[in-house]
């Protein structure tokens, strides 16, 4: 398929997953604030940090604002300056969708378009202020519906493989970040059993794994079982190992010939497998950091290799692509 289109499919998957994950994390954090006796700052600050937005947020709103739940929610939900806000992710996903409209089913396109229109409506702003839970729930449901439609209405060809690989790799990084964030708070609070429990519950909610975990462990909540579940459980579709394996499978079907992104994804998988045997809870932060960094660089490698094995051209080297947003003067008479 056309390289640019493949890249947009990949990114569409990433943006949708990112939007879904943001909505879930915001919802879970709101709930944490009510459940645990943790200083409010310690609930919201990590959310900004794991999104990689601490510096720009502090510059804009000041350090104290990290404890201001409303401000953090607004920044992470609406801000257009924040490229990873919910709003930015949905807009970016919809931009991608427009450019790969021919790859998507009509149902799928209509859902993403309606989600985009939903975020722009005045009545949605009212909903946000009057019923925050319902607002996040709507976004989650729609993004989940979109992911379902990808599997159930798209042709299971190359376009869907790129898209789904984007979903899986984004999920790997999001799960790693969410686990890291909770682990962080845990270290700092190191406190009471009740707080720990609230944090673990929040982690499970943030990763949609609450009931799945309980089914497996029947209430036996411990740091060890929790980390193993989120990192290694191959039956849990948000665990790091599950998502990495799923991404590797899609990639191996796209490119049967050797590609360096494929090789790196396979070795990351092997490395995670290795950690299963020797992981110590104390090292969890460095493990997660490695997973996030390596996933990020695999993603850029994929984007690079999507360009295909192009020969050096003798004539007419196409040169740089036009900057997006640049539109040409239109041909005659628009209707």
């Amino acid at each position, binding site marked *: 398929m*056309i390289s*640019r289109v493949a890249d947009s499919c990949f990114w569409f998957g990433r943006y949708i997953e990112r939007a879904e994950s943001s909505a879930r994390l915001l919802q879970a954090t709101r709930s944490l604030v009510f459940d645990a006796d943790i200083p409010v700052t310690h609930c919201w600050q990590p959310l900004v940090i794991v999104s990689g937005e601490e510096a720009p947020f502090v510059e804009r709103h000041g350090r104290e604002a990290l404890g201001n739940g409303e401000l953090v929610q607004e920044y992470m939900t609406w801000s257009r300056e924040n490229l990873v806000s919910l709003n930015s992710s949905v807009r970016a996903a919809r931009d991608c969708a427009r450019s790969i409209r021919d790859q998507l089913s009509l149902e799928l396109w209509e859902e993403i378009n309606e989600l985009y229109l939903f975020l722009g409506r005045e009545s949605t702003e009212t909903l946000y202020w009057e019923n925050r839970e319902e607002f996040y729930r709507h976004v989650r449901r729609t993004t989940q519906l979109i992911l379902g439609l990808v599997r159930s209405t798209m042709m299971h060809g190359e376009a869907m493989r790129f898209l789904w690989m984007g979903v899986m790799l984004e999920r790997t990084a999001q799960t790693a970040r969410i686990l890291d964030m909770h682990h962080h708070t845990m270290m700092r609070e190191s406190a009471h059993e009740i707080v720990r429990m609230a944090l673990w519950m929040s982690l499970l909610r943030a990763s949609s794994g609450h009931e799945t975990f309980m089914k497996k462990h029947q209430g036996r909540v411990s740091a060890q079982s929790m980390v193993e579940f989120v990192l290694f459980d191959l039956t849990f579709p948000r665990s790091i190992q599950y998502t990495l394996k799923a991404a590797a499978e899609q990639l191996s079907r796209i490119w049967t010939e050797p590609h360096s992104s494929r090789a790196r994804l396979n070795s990351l998988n092997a490395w995670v497998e290795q950690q299963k045997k020797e992981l110590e809870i104390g090292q969890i932060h460095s493990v997660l950091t490695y997973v996030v960094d390596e996933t990020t660089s695999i993603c850029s490698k994929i984007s690079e290799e999507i360009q295909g094995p192009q020969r050096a051209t003798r*004539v*007419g*080297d196409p040169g740089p692509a036009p900057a997006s947003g640049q539109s*040409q003067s239109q*041909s*005659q*008479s628009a*209707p």
Partner: protein
Amino acid sequence: MFDSYQPLAGCFDELVNADGSPRPYTRRIHALLSSTPPREFARYQSLAELSLFNQGVTFSVYSDQQGTEKIFPICLVPRVLGAAEWAQVERGLVQRIRALNLFLDDMYGDQKILKDKVIPADLVLGAKAFEKKVLGMKPAGGVRIPIAGIDLIRDPDGTFRVLEDNVRTPSGVSYVVENRLVTKRIFRESVEMSSVRSVEQYPIELAHTLRAIAPDKDPDVNMVVLTPGVYNSAYFEHSFLARHMGIDLVEPSDLFVDDDTVFVRTTHGPKRVHVIYKRIDDAYLDPKFFRPDSMLGVPGLMGAYAKGRVTLANAPGNGCADDKAVYPFVPDMIKYYLGEEHTLAQVDTYVCMRDDDKKYVLENLDKLVVKAVDEAGGYGMLMGPQSTAAQREEFKRRIIAEPRKYIAQHRIELSTCPTWDPAREKLSPRRVDLRPFILTSPEGSWVLPGGLTRVALVEGSYVVNSSQGGGSKDTWVEREGST
């Protein structure tokens, strides 16, 4: 709903006679609308608009930096054409396109028509759109105007007249197909009952046309639609056409040229492209050829075109055939190339380049519609009867400075069609035009039954362009022998 409907005096109405009675081929829709309570119709209207919006059937507004998208408003009251009158229009369109194709071949070839002084040479050669650089180049498939859109208006006598030709990249056909889907959902029975000719086969006919003009008879002809990108105002249409033909939609940066052959970059390496339906201005096609200062386009594309290795539809350089100053000479072209009289009427036009015409125009600015020859979309226009003295002064100055740039016509009382007026919750007459689409391959021409009817939604307005508050209507062509 027709109880209080008053046709506009002095205009031809598309649905009813001067006394308000339906025409033979509009009886069914007239009856249906008559029995629809206005409140229910208002509900249909808002449902239709919502559905277009949710489906993203939109165009982008350039003046707006926010990337605002608007729907092209639709009025659900269709415009209906009788089988006999349509057959006549169709013949006229095919004749016109044949002549324009021959004219372009001649212009970029021996220029016989200029040598024979049928058309003033400086008029054509002076056109901004006359592209000296394509002189001598022949399009691979042999057709310069595979896709045309001819704007027609109807005068008070009911005669169709050509207002302008669009033989570069006429747009709007996607709305024809989408509008039909919307009205079909709402008037299901009526469409069937009225025996309306179908329009949804357009993309298939377009694919057929493009395949027929491919450079060689490779069975795996690779055809693409070339768009400037998602920010282009007509992007929806580009995407629509690609999807409905089942071919790839590409941007210039997806293509490259190697050894005078065009390739598209794919995840599995370069793939040859044979036919490009380009929806990009000529100037941005190939920076090496047209605009060395431009970063946009596909370097080397024109080289591949000149060698006949790729078909570009429509052919580069076509702008000199739909130049507004060349328009008055189309009947002469038809006579010259085909030896026939033209069958589609035109609008009498004053060409300011001619001294007599210029003098007349300057003396009668308050009665005329003045148009800049190289502007479109309703821009660069003076509506004399509705203008202010200051606007007339401004145009006077401009015409004297650059007479070649201006033409003038008497304002035609465009025909009207009953149109939903949301403020008054009733039908009111609004002015319409018609843009039929004509596809041409070496095997001949095919005309889309009907075309895009644009309607000036603002009371009293003559400007139907989407950029100036225009909307559209579904256009029904009656099946032969159904009344």
